[in-house]
């Protein structure tokens, strides 16, 4: 609850900051539109050549794209900007100000910077997802909806743990921008269902960068492909990831010596 309240406060601050530059809204709209348009365009070219890609129907491929953009937008909305800010704070020593605040430091650095215009990606993603689901025609019953919602939440938790663990490395290494670039490049593979990749890539996309849990598993839940075991596995991975990244964060924080003196 406390986390949500803080997130809301920072979102309001972020909105005030961004609303001062309203032209950026249109720029973001164009960017999101082009990104979504070209991704769907490629899907269109692909499905013009085949009816099903490893068993995924066109509408299901579009659903994967929807989930991909919804998660992408969420990362860019709060996780990426907050943690980039955090890494800069470690470098410059201004993390001191955060640490003196009477709140959990991990929570503070995770929500401190909200780029509200990135909501456009989330909205586009969810809209495309809704359209795709409507086209699928299959009844999305309460069980499937629940499975989808929990898969999405678990995926978000795993992605968050991954990012916080990466960011925590800033306590030891000065420059990590390049590592984050690698995340983005690999994340692009999530536009397609993981099943199409060869085994060695699938392992990398599940374990090294959690694309599988973030995008494919929720999409599988929606299209009725998910079995209970996978969802249970995702829950297990999510709990381990959250706990492990928390431990790692605490370990890193002890390393921080501050900039004062």
């Amino acid at each position, binding site marked *: 609850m406390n986390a949500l309240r803080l997130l809301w406060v920072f979102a309001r601050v972020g909105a005030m900051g961004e609303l001062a530059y309203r032209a950026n809204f249109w*720029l973001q709209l*164009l*960017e999101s539109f*082009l*990104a979504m*348009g*070209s991704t769907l*365009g*490629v899907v269109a*070219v*692909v499905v*013009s*050549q*085949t*009816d*099903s*890609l*490893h068993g995924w129907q066109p509408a299901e491929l579009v659903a994967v794209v929807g989930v991909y953009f919804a998660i992408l937008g969420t990362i860019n909305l709060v996780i990426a900007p907050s943690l980039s800010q955090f890494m800069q704070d470690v470098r410059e020593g201004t993390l001191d100000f955060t640490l003196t605040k009477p709140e959990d430091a991990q929570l503070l650095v995770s929500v401190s910077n909200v780029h509200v215009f990135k909501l456009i990606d989330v909205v586009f993603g969810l809209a495309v997802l809704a359209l795709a689901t409507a086209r699928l025609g299959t009844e999305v019953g309460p069980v499937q909806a629940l499975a989808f919602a929990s898969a999405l939440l678990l995926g978000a938790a795993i992605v968050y743990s991954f990012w916080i663990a990466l960011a925590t490395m800033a306590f030891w290494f000065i420059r990590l921008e*390049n590592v984050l*670039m*690698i995340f983005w*490049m*690999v994340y*692009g*593979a999530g*536009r*397609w269902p993981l099943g*199409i*990749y*060869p085994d*060695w*890539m699938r392992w990398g996309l599940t374990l090294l960068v959690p694309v599988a849990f973030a995008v494919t598993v929720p999409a599988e839940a929606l299209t009725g492909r998910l079995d209970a075991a996978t969802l249970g596995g995702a829950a297990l991975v999510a709990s381990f990831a959250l706990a492990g990244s928390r431990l790692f964060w605490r370990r890193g924080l002890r390393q921080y010596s501050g900039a004062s003196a």
Partner: protein
Amino acid sequence: MKQALDLYGTLLRVAIAGNIQYRAAGMVWMLGMVIEPVIYLVVWSAVADSRGESVAGYDARDFAAYYLTFFVLHHLTFTWIMEVFQYRVQQGSLSFELLRPIHPIYADIADNVAYKLVMLVVMIPAAVVIALAFEPRFQPVGWSLALLPIAVVLAFFTRFFLEWGLAMSAFWTTRTTAVNRTYYSIYLFLSGRAAPIALLPAWLSGVAEHLPFYAMIGFPVELALGKLSPERALSGLGVQLVWTLFALGFVAMVWRRAVRRFSAVGG
């Protein structure tokens, strides 16, 4: 002539040293350039597998050859000028370049060539890994390979001049993201990056064949693979030549207008 060679020699030495210094950033870029074609390669192989037959003359191993060649030729011809030019204008570092007695584009060409030379260290192993993982099938054709160097050089200059010219939109709008994103979205489809253009709807591939995007990469790739008839190869080279000259004229014209607009705060 000797002066020009001396100039390039010096610029190239400086640029190579710079690229070796920032090798980590360069390697990350390379990783991105490996991942993207591999994703499209996997997608199209999956399409070929799902259909159980070749797609417009490409089966899974042909797609592997297409995207491996794409990866190599893209490395040789790509530029990153559109990503960086706006910072030169915003932060005024262009002022220093304008003080030099030579056009800044020379240093950019040297830097581009230097990056590519230095990154061969990464690129060759990456190409070998892709080849081992996806088993491409090459059926090279002699005359077509002989024309390839010309096509690659023309592709390089078309792309370099065109993107340098477009990058100068930074003189008029300091946020060039909109221009860049639009350009890359068009490029994605019409260049043969998302798919060989033969897989696009017929009317679109007919248009794409005559546009600079295909001339910049799709055409050299298909030439290298021996996919083109002699007539199409020659007309493709002609299209490339026209676009190279057009792009050269474009960059010269925009530059003349652009520097007049430039007014930086001194550093």
